């Protein structure tokens, strides 16, 4: 479970995140939806403890990220926006590196690699060097790397960017499976259909603020627009009106 309250972050003069509060529950997929530059990535980076919040609180399964960032990191898997691999290492070696940094033993790591290999259908690339991997192959490897320590919470920043249809489908199936097994999944996107198709709950962010949150149905009701696209435009548009 990820609980975020009153998160704030500024870069120099620019206020990237002004007031963000939400809760991402276990066994649910929570989507952060908003236009580019709304503050989604900054929020996720703070949750991943890559950036320090200026103000506010982040709890990962009741671990305060400001107080114990190392313990918090153990409990999350992060698929960051730029999830680069080490080109001279094979997919397996890339995954293994993160496993050992998580303190996993060799047999544990090997078993987990085999599991991930079947889960993500990586048989053909597992022992190939990452140099020259396709976008989809890179994503699979990065995802396996983020999942290697079997974290309860998974954070994905724009995971479908640049993926082909098949890869997106595979990712969607995987996330559904993880939800089924009780994981807490938080991901950001600026693609409405994707969020609508996948998410149990949606947090709409614009200009660094949460402008609406709830299930798809709730959002539809809130905006009084039967069409989802119109609903989002209205929600985000009204946010601009607030500023």
């Amino acid at each position: 479970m990820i609980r975020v309250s009153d998160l704030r972050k500024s870069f120099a003069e620019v206020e990237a995140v002004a007031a963000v509060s939400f809760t991402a529950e276990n066994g649910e997929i929570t989507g952060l939806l908003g236009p580019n530059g709304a503050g989604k990535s900054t929020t996720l980076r703070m949750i991943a403890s890559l950036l320090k919040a200026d103000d506010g609180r982040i709890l990962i399964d009741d671990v305060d990220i400001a107080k114990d960032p190392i313990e918090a990191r153990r409990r999350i898997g992060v698929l960051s926006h730029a999830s680069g691999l080490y080109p001279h290492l094979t997919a397996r070696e890339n995954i293994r590196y993160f496993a050992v940094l998580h303190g996993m033993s060799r047999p544990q790591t090997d078993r987990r690699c085999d599991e991930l290999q079947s889960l993500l259908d990586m048989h053909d690339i597992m022992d190939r060097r990452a140099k020259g991997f396709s976008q989809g192959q890179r994503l699979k490897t990065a995802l396996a790397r983020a999942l290697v320590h079997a974290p309860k919470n998974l954070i994905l920043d724009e995971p479908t960017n640049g993926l082909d249809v098949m890869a997106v489908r595979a990712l969607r199936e995987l996330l559904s499976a993880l939800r089924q097994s009780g994981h807490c999944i938080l991901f950001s996107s600026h693609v409405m259909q994707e969020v609508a198709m996948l998410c149990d709950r949606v947090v709409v962010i614009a200009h660094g603020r949460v402008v609406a949150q709830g299930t798809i149905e709730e959002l539809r009701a809130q905006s009084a627009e039967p069409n989802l696209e119109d609903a989002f435009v209205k929600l985000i548009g009204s946010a601009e009106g607030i500023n």
Partner: protein
Amino acid sequence: MRSIFLVFAKEFLENLRDRRTIMAALVFGPVLGPIMLAALLQISTSRGGDSLDEPMTLAVVGSQYAPQLMGLLESRDITIKPVELDEVQARRAVREREHATVLRVPEHFATRFANAAPAPLQLFVDASDRFGGFKEAERVRGVLERYGTELGQTRLLVRGVDPLLLAPIVVQPVDVSTPASRAALMLGILSYLVIFAMLMGGMYLAIDSTAGERERGSLEALLTMPLPRSYLIYGKILATSAYMLIAVSLTVAACTVTLQFIRLEEFGMSIALGPVSALLIVLFVSPLILFGASLMTVVASFTRSFREAQSYLGMVISVPTLPLAFIGVLGLTPTAWLYMVPSLSQHFLLTQVLRGETPSILNVLISASVSLTIGMILAWVAGRLYEREAILG
């Protein structure tokens, strides 16, 4: 601690597969070192070697006016080639390297010679042609002046004057240089080469593990690992250091082997580089490794891309090392405080070992402890840099 080692192991193994790192660490120094040594030796021998016995040809204008003199020159292996040139033509002929040098005997030479008046000779030479015409002209001048001196002494004797009166002071230079000290330039270059190869060996890894990691986009994921960020960078610095140690060891080994085949004594030089001094060199230079690795990591951490890092590090490694090559020639005397300067102190220790001297324990300790301390401070600075958010770029 374990995680530092894990990062080290991964960086070390990964870079074994990187062509650039391998070239820089395992090929650059060990191959270029001996080649540079051989090339240098070639230069110094072609300059220092004695060419006095080589036969040479001298263009002479008006050789018919001084047949005796020509005979003298011929007897010194200088072949006379009579030519017809006026003064302007002679100047041009030398300037355009048609002749290396031209000797002109004026018409009135014989008369003045017979009258015991100073008999003039003109020697045309291009002083900027240092290894060609100038050298030949010097040789001709030497022969002529020696002849002139002898002749003058004879003339004095004939007139009943002791020729020694003409030499009220005699300066005798006493050459105290040893074969090793004559090799000063070689020593400087060799020591520069060793230190440069060492830095070069770690350069690509320092870039790859910082700017490269960020450019590839793997840094963010790495920073979400449950360990202090400074541990990551310590592991990377250790891996860089390991490659630097390998590079320096191989370079010293390659130079040692090469020098066994070159008989430096024949060129009046000697460099003490056997297995023992090779080990000492690696030992004395290794405290500089941490300094170099941390410095390169810190600099590369500030850059935005691999390319940018490359150009900065190019400067970082040549600015402190290049002057080393010339210190021996400049004659900078090592004082205690100079042993506190990283890279300079290692240079002094290296040249001492190469000269066959034993450096004082105190200087070795000063050099090692100061370099290691600064190295550790720089490593700590690198660790701090990675705690900053700006490192994400």
